[in-house]
């Protein structure tokens, strides 16, 4: 009897020590997904990837679940859209911005997400739920939030600017960087003019175009990711770009400063979605849920430097940007903001053709014609000279 008791107590003891380590069958058992794969398609530089001592989020996911992550990147929403629309590739998780989500829902390119598989969705702040592009919260889970503002170099710019007008200031000729994508570039002009970003009035688009044309001689270059190098290296004085990226740049060049123009600006939400054609939906939902988990979301927020819609990040004491007035401006400092909406095909067409026109303008038009004509004359002269010489030679023999 004694033996039984002692062995029983030993068993209990063992059980007590081991028990905490036995995984609790929580929000779903995913052991059957082990060995499968998911394809994740995200923006460049938009995940904590293990560089500079950060957490490698994808590797950690693979370790925890045994699901392989095939990760690839895009530079613009439109790139991603073309890839999905073309149907050439299968992705399980994509992270488009608001207006693109609206467009993809319209065109039936997104699957409904089963939110019962995403318990961590409760971490998302209420203000980022039921947004216009997904009013019933069926298709998207917010990942990052941001606003567009102006980055400037305090050594090159006098005073403390507060308006978009600085991008049209003749003083900074050849020192202004403008977005190299039509939507954002037109957005800058529209906000400066006080026009809605989503106007359907073609006359208003033309006014914004005239503004951009007026700005063109002042623009040093039209850039996207090159803005990092150019602003950090002091190549340009003023750039319109995303707030979060300013925080990355200022680490490398402390002379940089940032402000939200008083006229108002564009706000965006990038959300995780599951496109149609997804091959492993369960694993995709597991991945989305994982991205919302406190520790993972914190690692991403620290690495990407964009504002997080995740309560678990904002309430974490270790989060270094929690008091950052650029990412999380106080209510009274917030500029008026407007989301991009999905444009009607006609408006989209108008915008891109105006953008084309802006780009094909050059200041060397005359010299091209003169050059080409003189070249043709010289070439023709040479050809005649050769033929004449040849004839002469042939007649000699």
């Amino acid at each position, binding site marked *: 009897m004694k033996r039984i008791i002692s062995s029983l107590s030993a068993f209990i003891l063992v059980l007590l020590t081991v028990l905490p380590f036995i995984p609790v069958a929580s929000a779903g058992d995913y052991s059957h997904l082990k060995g499968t794969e998911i394809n994740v398609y995200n923006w460049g530089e938009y995940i904590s990837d293990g560089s500079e001592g950060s957490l490698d989020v994808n590797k950690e996911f693979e370790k925890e679940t045994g699901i392989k992550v095939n990760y690839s990147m895009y530079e*613009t929403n439109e790139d991603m859209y073309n890839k999905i629309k073309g149907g050439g590739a299968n992705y399980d998780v994509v992270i488009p911005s608001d207006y693109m989500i609206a467009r993809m829902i319209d065109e039936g390119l997104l699957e409904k997400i089963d939110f019962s598989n995403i318990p961590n969705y409760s971490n998302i702040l209420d203000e980022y739920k039921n947004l216009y592009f997904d009013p019933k919260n069926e298709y998207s889970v917010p990942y990052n939030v941001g606003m567009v503002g102006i980055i400037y170099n305090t050594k090159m710019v006098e005073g403390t600017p507060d308006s978009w007008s600085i991008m049209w200031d003749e003083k900074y000729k*050849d020192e202004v960087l403008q977005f190299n994508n039509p939507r954002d570039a037109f957005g800058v002009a529209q906000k400066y003019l006080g026009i809605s970003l989503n106007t359907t009035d073609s006359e208003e688009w033309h006014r914004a175009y005239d503004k951009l044309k007026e700005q063109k001689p002042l*623009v040093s270059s039209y850039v996207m990711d090159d803005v990092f190098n150019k602003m950090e290296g002091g*190549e340009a004085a003023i750039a319109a770009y995303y707030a979060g990226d300013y925080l990355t740049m200022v680490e490398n060049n402390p002379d940089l400063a940032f402000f939200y123009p008083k006229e108002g600006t564009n706000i965006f939400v990038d959300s995780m979605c599951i496109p149609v054609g997804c091959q492993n939906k369960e694993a995709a939902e597991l991945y989305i849920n994982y991205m919302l988990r406190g520790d993972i979301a914190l690692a991403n927020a620290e690495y990407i430097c964009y504002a997080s819609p995740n309560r678990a990040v904002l309430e974490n004491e270790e989060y270094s940007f929690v008091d950052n007035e650029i990412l999380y401006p106080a209510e009274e400092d917030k500029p008026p903001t407007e989301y991009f909406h999905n444009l009607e095909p006609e408006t989209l067409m108008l915008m891109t053709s105006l953008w*084309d026109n802006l*780009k*094909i303008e050059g200041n060397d038009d005359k010299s*091209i014609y003169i050059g*080409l004509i003189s070249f043709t004359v010289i070439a023709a002269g040479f050809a005649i000279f050769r033929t004449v010489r040849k004839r002469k030679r042939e007649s000699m023999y």
Partner: protein
Amino acid sequence: MKRKDSLAQRLCASPHIVWSALFIVVPLIMVVYYAFTDKTGAFTLDNISRLSDYTTTFLRSIWYGIIATIICLVIAYPVAYIIARSKARVQSTMIMLVMIPMWMNFLLRTYSWMTLLADNGVINNLLAKIGAGPLHMINTAGAVILGMVYNFLPYMILPIYTVMTKLDNSLIEAAQDLGANKARVFIDVVVPHSISGVVSGITMVFVPSVSTFYISQKLGGGSFALIGDIIEMQFQISNNFNFGAALSLVLMILILICMTVMNRFGDNDESKGGVMI
């Protein structure tokens, strides 16, 4: 006398033929199809009629291509001549030096020119050290043409060099025996002999220069577009494949015209060894 190809010969050629059909002919047909249809697939000429707005862009691309090609030719011709006339060991080293930059990625090489030419870049820093004023180089047409010349120069040197090495020394000696001085030998023997190399060099520099978009974006700052940029925009941003295809089609035709004119200069010379279009 024409001999029929044996079965073995035809079998050996078939992978290439299948490859060309799949990845050259079929895409070309698709380009033509897209150029003459709208989004719904109905026949339209709208894409073609819209092209007239882009005349200046087309001409600008061709003009920059011509300048880049001429500069390449002026640099490459003497280089190829000197390499071909030097000793075998020196030759292989020098050809190696021409090739080495091509081992690096094209995008990377162009990107590094951005840092070299920038207003606070390497070159301007060096100039400042010796007291010379800063030069504004980046985001100018000159920078774009420099990028073209730098990237495509090997394609000019190599074919000219190949032709030059085939020049029989006894031809030169014969000319000298007949009393030709050095300049005469060069003009009447070396130059005509090398025409086919020059023509293929011009083709290989001119075509990629005219259609480039990366160089103009990075070194031109995106402020003035070449036709390659416009085509890229149709596919990447505007999602307007049909108009993009129309632009590509016209670009191909223009290049073809330029090359046909070009080949007229070369085709009455009987020398061999170059690649002709």
